[in-house]
């Protein structure tokens, strides 16, 4: 849950305005985008390797495909803009949290693994969606970076609904 906590802390700090938190720069936003996508790609790969549930497997494979496509778009844009994605406290917290989540998932099997993976995907996509709306889009200064994040938003929203659909099927 540390990944989610990291995003929550960022959101809370920005909710109190710029006096309480420094807005991320465009290179830092690019770094957060790439990190957030890579985290979901890695979790998806673990799920594809571990799950025996067809719905969970299809969802996880789609997360790998879609988040890889987003990162390819981001890589092409930063190359075009000659911007190097930078680490930030947020991206470092995300990576730390992701490591904890992966450790937890590695210790689970079968239905327990499926539930933990999907529950985390639901919470993670909701938090990423909130971060896009409250932090990443409002603070992106470059129009093309803002446009990329705006275009990615519907995919994150669809992933959230898809994850909820799979979560619901696991409870039956």
């Amino acid at each position: 849950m540390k990944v989610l906590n990291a995003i929550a802390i960022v959101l809370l700090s920005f909710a109190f305005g710029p006096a309480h938190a420094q807005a991320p720069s465009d290179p830092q936003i690019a770094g957060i985008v790439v990190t957030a996508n890579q985290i979901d790609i890695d979790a998806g790969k673990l799920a594809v390797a571990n799950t025996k549930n067809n719905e969970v497997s299809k969802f996880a494979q789609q997360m790998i495909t879609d988040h890889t496509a987003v990162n390819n778009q981001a890589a092409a844009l930063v190359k075009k803009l000659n911007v190097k994605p930078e680490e930030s406290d947020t991206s470092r917290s995300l990576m730390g949290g992701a490591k904890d989540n992966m450790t937890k998932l590695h210790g689970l099997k079968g239905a327990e693994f499926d539930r933990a993976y999907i529950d985390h995907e639901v919470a993670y996509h909701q938090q990423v969606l909130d971060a896009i709306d409250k932090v990443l889009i409002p603070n992106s200064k470059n129009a093309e970076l803002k446009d990329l994040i705006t275009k990615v938003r519907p995919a994150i929203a669809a992933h959230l609904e898809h994850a909820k659909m799979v979560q619901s099927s696991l409870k039956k």
Partner: protein
Amino acid sequence: MRGKSILSAAALAAALGAPPVQPAGKPHTVTIEGMKFAPERIEVAVGDTITWINKDFLPHSVTAPAARLESGDLASNQSWKFSARKKGEIDYICRLHPVMRGVIVAK
């Protein structure tokens, strides 16, 4: 014989560099953008042709197993056509993102 005549006419037209014979019926377009089919519900007449064009950067599909409708994966800017051959409603989804839904109503 009639089929042969049509084929011969099409072959002749192709040989002469004429445009290919267009399918009968009115054309319609469904745009796939922002993880949505737009319009989500499309009403057409039997024989009309619907073209789906994927304007997202992620691949999508037009899939309705019950109606044996399957576009395959449509990459960005790729399109796919379908002609309604009988009256009725077809509920379809994107196989890759099953929360994306649409309806074809053929009248």
